[in-house]
C-alpha cells in the first residue's frame, strides 16, 4: 500500500483527471447543454493530438501554431460531421457519431505515412527513427517549473508542473463555459435541448446552434487531445477507442448533466477510482494477477454508474427536481 502516499503518483492521477475534465467539458456543452448525443467525442481529441503532432514533426511548424491549427481543424471536423447528421433524431445522431469516431481511429491506424500507423506517433517519420513533437513543450514546461520552484521549492517536479498547467486551462475553460451557457447564446442552446420546435418557432435557427455547439465542443476536445499528447510523449490510435468517449459520459453524469463545475469533480472521482484499483491488493483480490485486477476498475466504474442511476440520477451537482420535469 506504499503507493498510496506517493505524491508523484497522485500528481499523475491529477493530471489525468485534468485532461479528462477538459475532454468532458466539450461533451458537457454538446450533450449536457445542447442535448446532442455525441458518441464520437474521442475523435476530436484524436484529431487535435494528431494534427498537432503531424504539423510539428512533418511540416516542422512551431508548436504553438500547430496547436492552434489543430484546434481549428478539429472544429472544422465538428462542422463536417455536423452538417449531414445534426438534423437526425438523437438516437441516429448517436450511431453516426460512433461511426465517425471509429472512422477517425481507423484512418489513424491505416494511413501509416500520415499518422505513423498502429505503433503511433513515434513512427511519424518512418520506422526506426523515433520522432518527437514534444521538444518545445518540454522547454515551456521546464520554464513553468522554474517559476513554480520560486513558490514551492523542491516540491515543484515535472508532474506537479503539468498538474498546475492542466488545471489552469481546465479552470479557465470552466469559467468561460459558465459565462457562455448563461449568456443569451447559451440560453438558446439550452432551449434547443428542451424543445427544438419551440425554439425554432421563436425565431432561432436550431440547426446553426447545434453546429456551433458541436464545433465549440470539438475545439475543447482538441485541447484535451493536445494535453494528452504533451503528457505522454507519444500516442497511438488505440488511445482513442470508443471507451474514452464513454468515460467522458460517466464523468458528465457523475458530476451532473448541464453542471460545468460537476465535470472536474466527476473527473477526479473517476480518475481516482481508475488509478485506485491498483491498491486493491488485499485478500481475496490478491489471488488475482495484477493484470486481472486492472480490469476490476471497469467493473467498479460500472457499479458506480449503476448506483448513481439508481440513487442519484441527477449526479452530484444536479438538481433532483429537474429530473421529474416534463
Amino acid at each position, binding site marked *: 500500500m506504499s503507493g498510496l502516499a506517493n505524491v508523484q503518483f497522485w500528481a499523475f492521477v491529477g493530471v489525468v483527471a485534468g485532461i479528462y475534465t477538459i475532454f468532458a467539458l466539450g461533451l458537457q456543452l454538446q450533450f449536457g447543454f445542447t442535448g446532442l448525443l455525441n458518441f464520437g467525442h474521442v475523435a476530436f481529441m484524436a484529431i487535435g493530438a494528431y494534427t498537432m503532432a503531424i504539423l510539428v514533426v512533418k511540416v516542422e511548424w512551431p508548436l504553438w501554431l500547430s496547436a492552434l491549427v489543430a484546434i481549428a481543424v478539429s472544429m472544422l471536423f465538428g462542422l463536417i460531421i455536423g452538417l449531414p447528421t445534426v438534423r437526425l433524431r438523437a438516437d441516429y445522431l448517436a450511431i453516426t457519431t460512433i461511426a465517425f469516431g471509429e472512422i477517425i481511429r481507423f484512418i489513424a491506424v491505416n494511413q501509416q505515412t500520415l499518422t505513423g500507423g498502429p505503433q503511433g506517433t513515434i513512427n511519424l517519420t518512418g520506422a526506426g527513427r523515433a520522432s518527437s513533437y514534444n521538444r518545445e513543450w518540454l522547454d515551456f514546461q521546464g520554464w513553468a517549473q522554474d517559476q513554480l520552484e520560486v513558490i514551492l521549492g523542491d516540491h515543484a517536479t515535472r508532474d506537479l508542473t503539468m498538474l498546475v498547467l492542466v488545471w489552469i486551462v481546465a479552470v479557465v475553460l470552466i469559467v468561460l463555459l459558465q459565462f457562455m451557457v448563461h449568456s443569451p447564446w447559451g440560453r438558446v442552446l439550452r432551449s434547443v435541448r428542451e424543445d427544438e420546435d419551440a425554439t425554432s418557432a*421563436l425565431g432561432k435557427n436550431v440547426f446553426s446552434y447545434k453546429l456551433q455547439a458541436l464545433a465549440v465542443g470539438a475545439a475543447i476536445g482538441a485541447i484535451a487531445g493536445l494535453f494528452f499528447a504533451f503528457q505522454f510523449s507519444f500516442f497511438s490510435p488505440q488511445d482513442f477507442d470508443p471507451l474514452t468517449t464513454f468515460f467522458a459520459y460517466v464523468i458528465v453524469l457523475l458530476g451532473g448533466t448541464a453542471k460545468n463545475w460537476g465535470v472536474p469533480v466527476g473527473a477526479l472521482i473517476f480518475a481516482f477510482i481508475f488509478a485506485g484499483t491498483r491498491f486493491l491488493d488485499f485478500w481475496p483480490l490478491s489471488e488475482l494477477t495484477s493484470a486481472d485486477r486492472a480490469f476490476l476498475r471497469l467493473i467498479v466504474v460500472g457499479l458506480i454508474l449503476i448506483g448513481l442511476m439508481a440513487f442519484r440520477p441527477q449526479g452530484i451537482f444536479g438538481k433532483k427536481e429537474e429530473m421529474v420535469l416534463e
Partner: protein
Amino acid sequence: MSVPERNGTILELSDVVKHFGGVAAVAGAELDVRRGSITALIGPNGAGKTTLFNIVSGFYKPERGVISFEGERIDRKPPHAIAQRGLVRTFQITKALTKMSVLENMMLAAPHQPGEQLWRLVFTPRSARAREREVHEKAHELLKLVRLDRLAGDYAGTLSGGQRKLLEFGRALMRDPTMIMLDEPMAGVNPSLGLELLDHMKRLQDERGTTFLLIEHDMEVVMNVSERVIVMNEGRVISAGPPDEVRRDQAVIDAYLGTGRGAGEPSAPAEETPPSEGDTA
C-alpha cells in the same frame, strides 16, 4: 383606427395540399387573413386546422400551393425564418422549456439579442447586456399581463396546463409579432383570465395593428372576438365571412352536425362543442 392599410391581406394561402400517408390532411386550402384583423379558424376535429398552422409556420412543407405573408412567399422557408419575419405561432400541445425558468422561457423569445451570436458576445458584450436589460423588463411586463409574474423564477415544467398556455401566449408576444397564430389559446385557461387575454388581443390590434389568427373551439369566444371566421372541413376551407354569416351557412352546419362528413375524417376524441342550436338558428 390609426393603423394604415387595415384591410389589406397579410396572409394568403392558395391551393395548399399536404398528405399523411393516404390521407389528405390539407386538400387544396384557400384562405386569406386581413391585416389587423382577429380571425378565427374553426372546424371539426381532423379538419386540418393544426396541420394548416404547421404548414404556414414552416414546420411542414406543403406538397403544393403558395403561401405568402406580407406579399412574400414563405412556403419554402424554415420555421425560424418565418418567425423572424414577424409571423409567430403557439402550439396546441404546449411546448414549455421545462428545465428553464418561466422568465428564461420569456427572455429566450426576444428578437434582436446580439448576445445570441458568439462573436458579438465576445466583441460587443455591452450591447448584449444592454439588450438583455430591455428584454428582462419586457418579460416581466408580459408575465404580469398573463399573471405568471410571481412564478418567474420557477421551472416552466412546474406550471399547470393552463399556465403553460399563458406562457406560450406571453412568449409569442415577446417577439413583437405583426401576426400571431394561436392554436386553442383558451384551452385550460380560467374564463375570467381568458377574457382579459382577449381584451389584450383587442388592445394590441387597436394600438399596433397586430393580426390574430386563432384556432378556437369555444364558439362564444369565436363569435364575440373575431371579425371573420374561416371554417375548415376535410382539409378544405368550406366557408369564410363575418361570424353572423358563417353560422347560418348550411355547409358549416352540415360539417358540424355530421351530414356530408366523408370517410376521410380521422376519428378523434370529441372534445369540441359544435355551434349550439341557438348559434346556428
